[in-house]
């Protein structure tokens, strides 16, 4: 039940976010899908006891792969899909709690949470970078095999 709830809300939230960013109407459905895939990876991994940082890396990796697939298929910039995907992963809640503790003068806990938020934003970046690197390796190795065949 929770999973279905999460699937539907993450789909709607990601698609609605693309509207806020004036995304193309025809890509709304795909953006929702990308957001849903990323969030469900994150949600399931985290619920099964995986570390938040590692779960974020895997989720953002899956988002980047899905975005690149859609971008290639529909010949649109990859950023349209990846933005929709990573929005749910942005550590808004942790950053909020950090800010709250800063204001309430609990600096120890605040620094703790802020470092965690920073780590998670870093891991979103790492996931995106990883898939980009793999994508380029695949593209280059394909190119090489074509060159080899023609020789």
């Amino acid at each position, binding site marked *: 039940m929770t999973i279905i*709830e*999460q699937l539907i*809300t*993450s789909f*709607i*939230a990601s698609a*609605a*976010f*693309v*509207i*806020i*960013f*004036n*995304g*193309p*109407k025809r*890509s709304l459905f795909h953006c929702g899908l990308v957001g849903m895939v990323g*969030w469900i990876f994150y*949600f399931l991994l985290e619920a099964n006891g995986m570390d938040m940082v590692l779960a974020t890396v895997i989720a953002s990796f899956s988002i980047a792969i899905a975005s690149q697939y859609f971008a290639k298929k529909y*010949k*649109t*910039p990859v*950023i*349209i899909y*990846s*933005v929709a995907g*990573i*929005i*749910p992963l*942005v550590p*808004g*809640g942790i*950053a*909020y*709690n950090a*800010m*709250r503790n*800063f*204001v*309430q003068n609990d600096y120890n806990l605040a620094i703790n949470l802020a470092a965690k938020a920073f780590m998670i*934003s870093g891991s*979103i*970046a790492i996931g*995106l*970078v990883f898939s*980009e690197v793999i994508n380029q390796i695949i593209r280059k190795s394909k190119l090489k095999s074509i060159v080899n065949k023609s020789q």
Partner: protein
Amino acid sequence: MEMERQETYDIMAVCLLAGKIMLQSGAETYRVEDTMMRIAASFGAHQSHPYVTPTGILFSVEGTEPTKTKLIRIIERTTDLEKVASVNGISRKISAGEFTIEEAYKELKKISESGSPYSLWVHVLAAAISSGCFLIMFRGSWGDFFPAFVTGGLGFLSLLYFHQLVPIKFFSEFSASLLIGLQALFFVSTGIGGELDKIIIGSVMPLVPGLLITNAVRDLMAGHLISGLAKGADAFLTAFAIGAGIAVTFSFL
């Protein structure tokens, strides 16, 4: 000679317009540079050097005559992914040789003058819906859906309103998040809402600089260090404005 010079300037005008639209609409720096170089090359200017930063574009085209360089300033930046996609599509068509310089310029002009594909109320409704959905995703209860829906929608509307009132990003983001905090406090204190934290987190999500963060990362990855750092600073400032606005709310607790 005169004819050729005219043509180089025309090519530059098309490239700069394309670059300007993309940069103003929130495209990544490497994409802007790549698009400009491709357009120039498909019109016959094979030696071109775009230098793109978030606040301006420098573009020079080499040829048989002395190198020509132009600079344009980018002051207003919004987010309009539809325009990024449209310019991308036009650049593909130019590369395929489907457009002359005049046609391309006309098409780009049309894109730059076109408004947002969604009306203001669709934007506000989208912000409201996404706020409610984020609340559920962050494991809030369905009873808090309505407070988050209203708070998120009104928060986003106030962001747009304040930005129109005083065109300083920091101010509008700060005021909008302050308003979100106060509304959430109101809902919780009247008993309509349950968890203050969850309502605030959900409602603040439409203001979160997600596009800037992804853009900054992708720019840094592509080696555009200045653009990446500038966008990162922009994202940090936005996050700080939101945090400060919410922090003020806590002083009312």
